[in-house]
């Protein structure tokens, strides 16, 4: 039986859309001082920023600090580490680039999987592009007074807050 082209392409498009939406953003919620975080990232006015960060995936929580340092030409070096000094991951983030916007430099073996890396990068991308005035996407209301949370459809979330 000869396949007709238009339905075939429709199938391909549907499949591509479904795959993309696995990692697409479900919601971004914020409140209070979180506006400072989003403003800082979207306007890229900081040289260095150190935030409390919580990555949450399938009921597993990874808490620590996110250090973001501007190195020049729109490039940011990022380290996610815990208070005891253990580095979870380090990488380079280029907000203006195309597909390869986050390049991992090193990551602990326990986190070295495609889903985590891709989800983390997607959340970072959203944080860098978040506009406070655009308002949060439909989703849960802001959780904490100072928390900026990006939630993905696959259940991964990254919460950032200004340390007290």
């Amino acid at each position, binding site marked *: 039986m000869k396949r007709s082209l238009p339905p075939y392409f429709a199938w391909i498009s549907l499949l591509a859309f479904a795959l993309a939406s696995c990692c697409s953003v479900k919601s971004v919620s914020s409140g209070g001082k979180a506006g400072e975080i989003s403003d800082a990232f979207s306007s890229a006015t900081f040289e260095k920023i150190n935030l*409390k960060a919580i990555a949450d995936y399938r009921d597993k929580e990874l808490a620590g600090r996110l*250090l973001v340092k501007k190195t020049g030409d729109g490039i940011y070096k990022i*380290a996610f580490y815990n208070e005891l000094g253990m580095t979870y991951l*380090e990488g380079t983030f280029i907000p203006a680039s195309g597909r390869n916007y986050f390049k991992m430099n090193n990551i602990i073996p326990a986190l070295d999987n495609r889903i985590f890396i891709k989800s983390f990068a997607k959340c970072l991308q959203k944080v860098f592009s978040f506009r406070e005035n655009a308002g949060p996407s439909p989703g849960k209301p802001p959780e904490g007074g100072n928390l900026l949370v990006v939630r993905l459809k696959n259940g991964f979330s990254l919460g950032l807050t200004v340390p007290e």
Partner: protein
Amino acid sequence: MDEMRINILMLLTLISLEAISQETPVKDPSKLVEQVNLFSQKTSTITADFTQVKEMSFLEEKVISSGKFYFQKEKLLRWEYTSPFSYAIILNGDRIRIIDEGRSKDFDAGSNRMFLEISNIMTGMVDGTLLAGSQFTTTWYEAQGYYRAVMIPNVAAMKGYLARIELKLNKEDYSVDELKMIEKSGDYTLITFLNKKLNETIPAAIFRLD
């Protein structure tokens, strides 16, 4: 002639400085380990201030923090950061509490192998008992005032992340002066213990979880 004397003096000073800072392998590590074990047996509590420097080579950054440390036999430990953030880990037997800027979270090390390993390593690093275990292969060096243990992990999970741990022990009483954790990436965390007090009474409230 005067210039020659100055040059000889400088040369002698450099040679003596080099001799002071140079580390040499410990000839009989087993005797040293005995001394460390003796220290561990004689010590029931340790209280100290600490400073922590985390070196991140990729970011070319140093993150400095400080706090207070309490240890009591057998398995009571409180590792508390006071600057620049408020964060504490309290080990009380098989129970662990993390207090992060006032918010507490409890874990049961007894039913969680990873937490059990962490609590054993933390207490072992402090009281020196880690040196006697099989989790690490240890090489010993000495210099004026201290011994240095270079510990390379044998456990696969730890090997994937940690290149080595270095402990600097005070030659006077064999207590830990410095702890350095070197990650495979090259980053390291250096913890220096200051104002150490041994065998002083620590209030029970420091370790209480209830």
